[in-house]
C-alpha cells in the first residue's frame, strides 16, 4: 500500500491503484483516476455506473457483478463496455474509490 497525491489529496492505494479506504474518495479524485485510465471526461452515463458501484459497495460490502451492473445500474452491458472499454466493473470500481471487485462474474 502506498500513499499518493491525487487531485491534491493524499490517498492510500493498493498495488493496482485501487483506493483502500473509500472514505478518502471525492469526485475530483474520480476524474483524475479516470484520466489516468484513458477516460478523458466522465459523462453522466459514466457517473451513473460509478455511483451505482460505489453505493452498492458501501451498502453491501461487495461490488456488484457485471451481470447485476448490466441489469440494475440502468446502463446495459453493451454500453458499459463502450463507456469503460478496459473492463467496466474493474474500472468503475477504481474510479469510484472502492476495492477491486473480487468475483469471477
Amino acid at each position: 500500500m502506498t500513499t499518493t497525491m491525487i487531485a491534491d489529496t493524499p490517498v492510500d492505494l493498493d498495488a493496482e491503484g485501487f483506493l483502500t479506504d473509500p472514505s478518502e474518495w471525492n469526485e475530483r479524485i474520480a476524474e483524475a483516476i479516470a484520466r489516468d485510465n484513458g477516460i478523458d471526461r466522465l459523462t453522466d452515463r459514466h457517473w451513473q455506473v460509478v455511483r451505482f458501484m460505489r453505493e452498492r459497495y458501501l451498502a453491501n460490502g461487495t461490488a456488484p457483478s457485471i451481470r447485476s451492473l448490466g441489469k440494475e445500474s440502468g446502463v446495459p452491458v453493451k454500453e458499459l463496455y463502450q463507456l469503460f472499454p478496459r473492463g467496466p466493473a474493474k474500472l468503475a470500481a477504481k474510479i469510484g474509490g472502492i476495492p477491486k471487485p473480487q468475483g469471477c462474474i
Partner: protein
Amino acid sequence: MATQLTEPPQSEPADRKTIEKVAIVISKGSLEGVYPGLIMANGARMEGIEADLFFTFFGLDAIRKDRYANIKVATVGNPGMHLPTWVGALPGFSALATRMMKRQMENIDIPPIPEFIELVADSGAHLYACKATVDMFGLTMQDFVKQVDEIITVGEFYEKAAGGEIIFT
C-alpha cells in the same frame, strides 16, 4: 532429500507480457462443459481482454435455439459426481443434478446459459460455430441464436485467433 533443480524466480521479469486476446473453444454439450468457457470469456472481457468463442461438436448445443435453454449436467461417466454410475443413470437424476447446479450458479450470480450467451456477446466477445460440425449435423445459421456471428472453418478460426492464446475446454 529433495533437490532443488532450478533457482526460484527472485522477481518478475521486467518484460512480463499481459494477455491481450483469447480464443476459447467450447467442445462439450453438458452444463459443466459449457460454463467454464463462458466464464473465461466473460472474465477476459471484464479485464479488457479481447475474446472469441468457437463452438464445436456438442458444444454447439450452447448456441442452438432449440437446445441452449436445456443443457444438462452429465451424471453418467462423470467421476466428479462421486456417485456410482448406475445412480447417475436413474431416471430424472440428471434433471435433479442440473436443477441443483443451476441453483448454486444463481447463488453466486452466474447466469443461466441463454442469459450468459447474451452477456458475453454484449460484452464484445465474438461467437462462431464450427463449420465441420455444422455440416455434420446438417445445421444452418437459422438453427443458432442471433448472437452467433458466423459459421467458420478451423482455418478461419486460427486466423481470428492469431496473436492470442487458444484455450480448449
